[in-house]
């Protein structure tokens, strides 16, 4: 029997993403979560006899945009197909989907090392920065929502017909950590393009996982198992960790893996058989005759290109190179475009861009702000960083200024003034400190006068100490020199 280290997992993901649009995929009903049951429906999305679908241009544009962001080939002419199966949440008992000519093919998701689970960020698998190939991205309609009672189920068709994008990966993933990083990295890209909020816990991103195990070095795949009911990115990791362990345990005992669908139970921390796949579904795909093929090469692709954001990888590289932020900071900023925009505004008016990043990502973020609506103007952080670097205030004072900035947002310069934190620049006061210093340090005075110019530093130190660090060093230097040469 082989030891567990000799096994490897082969993982492929199918990710469904709800698109950000005003209306549904094939009708003008609003695409919004949370409406009263069956209040966002019409003859089209209820599958009433005689109704016809018309594709939502924006959903197609966002799918093409996703394809462009992930380096896919965009089909010049894409088609919709009917996928036939009976289910009460599918009003027509066929789903309009794409089979033969999807909008996007190929492409890849690069794994961001900082989007691995925290405990794996220093691991070799994170540092490998692998790129996971995609098979395709297609557009389809979502199904209705069912509620289950004792003997019956009730159906709310508000979600029926909302646009759903399916992203299918190649079976390139090898570890639960990689699957975790794949979903995080994909989410980052989707957020950057404004395609979707892609929150798995809200069902905006849903993921089916195919996983099998095989001895390291073997080319052929093992029997794959499909996992369902994965409701968070960390849930995907946990489910895979469990399932891979289960499969290795089974094959080591000489048991065969069943080709089946298993359900992840997050509370139990285990997967359970849902259905065995004796008979493959026969979906009888055929081209949707109600819809003409969609040309993307006459404007749609161009429209998508004009909406291309700076991609996370490019953004990170730029922030590191031009602003001197750390790799980790760049990853955090790339993951949150609103925060990133806030940071870039803050950094725009100052030379101290790295210092601004520290303020925003350490101190500001710790207060759990909403950068989109925060009354703390981003320029304030540029100003604050400047005050420190230029020596107007020291770091201890800066913390006080920050606290006040959060409590009563105002220009840091004004806060410094209000709190009396600014350095003392009053000539009379400084002269008094200097006289005191000269009187208390006759030795240093003598040294200085005998030509040891460094000796003045001891006198300056005395003044700074006496003034609790508030004395303006440049002025102190001038006054001391004048007094000593008198």
């Amino acid at each position, binding site marked *: 029997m082989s030891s567990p280290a000799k096994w490897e997992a082969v993982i492929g993901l199918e990710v469904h993403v709800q698109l950000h649009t005003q209306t549904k995929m094939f009708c*003008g009903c609003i695409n919004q979560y949370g409406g009263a049951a069956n209040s966002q429906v019409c003859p089209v999305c209820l599958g009433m006899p005689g109704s016809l679908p018309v*594709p939502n241009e924006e959903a197609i544009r966002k799918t093409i945009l996703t394809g462009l962001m992930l380096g896919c080939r965009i089909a010049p002419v894409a088609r919709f197909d009917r996928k036939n199966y009976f289910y009460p949440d599918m009003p027509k008992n066929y789903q309009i989907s794409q089979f033969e000519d999807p909008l996007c093919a190929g492409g890849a998701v690069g794994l961001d090392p900082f989007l691995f689970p925290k405990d794996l960020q220093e691991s070799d698998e994170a540092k490998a920065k692998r790129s996971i190939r995609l098979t395709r991205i297609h557009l389809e309609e979502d199904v209705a929502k069912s509620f289950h009672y004792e003997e019956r189920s009730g159906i709310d068709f508000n979600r029926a017909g909302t646009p759903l994008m399916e992203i299918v990966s190649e079976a390139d993933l090898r570890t639960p950590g990689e699957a975790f990083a794949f979903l995080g990295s994909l989410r980052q890209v989707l957020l950057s393009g404004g395609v979707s909020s892609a929150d798995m816990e809200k069902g905006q991103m849903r993921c089916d996982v195919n996983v099998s195990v095989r001895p390291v070095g073997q080319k052929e795949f093992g029997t794959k198992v499909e996992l369902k009911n994965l409701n968070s990115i960390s849930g995907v990791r946990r489910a895979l960790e469990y399932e891979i362990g289960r499969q290795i345990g089974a094959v080591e005992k000489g048991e065969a893996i069943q080709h089946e669908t298993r359900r992840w139970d997050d509370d139990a921390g285990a997967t359970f058989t849902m259905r065995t796949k004796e008979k493959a579904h026969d979906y009888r795909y055929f081209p949707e005759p109600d819809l003409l093929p969609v040309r993307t090469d006459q404007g749609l692709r161009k429209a998508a290109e004009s909406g291309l954001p700076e991609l996370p990888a490019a953004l990170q590289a730029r922030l590191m190179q031009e602003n001197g932020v750390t790799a980790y900071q760049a990853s955090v900023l790339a993951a949150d475009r609103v925060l990133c925009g806030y940071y870039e505004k803050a950094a725009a008016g100052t030379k101290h861009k790295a210092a601004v990043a520290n303020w925003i990502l350490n101190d500001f973020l710790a207060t759990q702000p909403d950068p989109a609506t925060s009354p703390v103007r981003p320029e304030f952080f540029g100003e604050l960083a400047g005050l420190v670097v230029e020596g107007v205030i020291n770091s201890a004072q800066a913390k006080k200024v920050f606290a006040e900035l959060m409590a009563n947002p105002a220009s840091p310069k004004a806060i410094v003034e209000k709190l009396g934190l600014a350095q003392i620049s009053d000539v009379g006061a400084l002269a008094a400190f200097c006289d005191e210093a000269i009187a208390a340090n006759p030795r240093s005075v003598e040294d200085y006068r005998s030509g040891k110019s460094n000796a003045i530093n001891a006198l300056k130190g005395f003044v700074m100490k006496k003034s609790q660090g508030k004395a303006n060093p440049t002025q102190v230097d001038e006054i001391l020199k004048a007094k000593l040469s008198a």
Partner: protein
Amino acid sequence: MSAPKLNVADVAGLARLSLTPDETTKFTAQLSQILAHMETLGQIATGDVPEVVPPAQPVLRPDMPTPSLSVEAALANAPAQSNDLILVPKIVE
């Protein structure tokens, strides 16, 4: 094209139809005859003929909301409903 073996009951199941034994016998005979007629297509050379694809059209729907039905109208035809949901026998996976 080889003569297909049509299992009427199986295909009916895919289409969620149940047939009486009489219907099964009759449909099997009738559909076999019809399929035999369709076999003639096999003799037509279509090697490099592309499938008919309608012309691609640029007209799509702008992403602008239009009025939905009222809940009442949406459910008016439903054979069973409760709390504004359409009811069916319990869905079991």
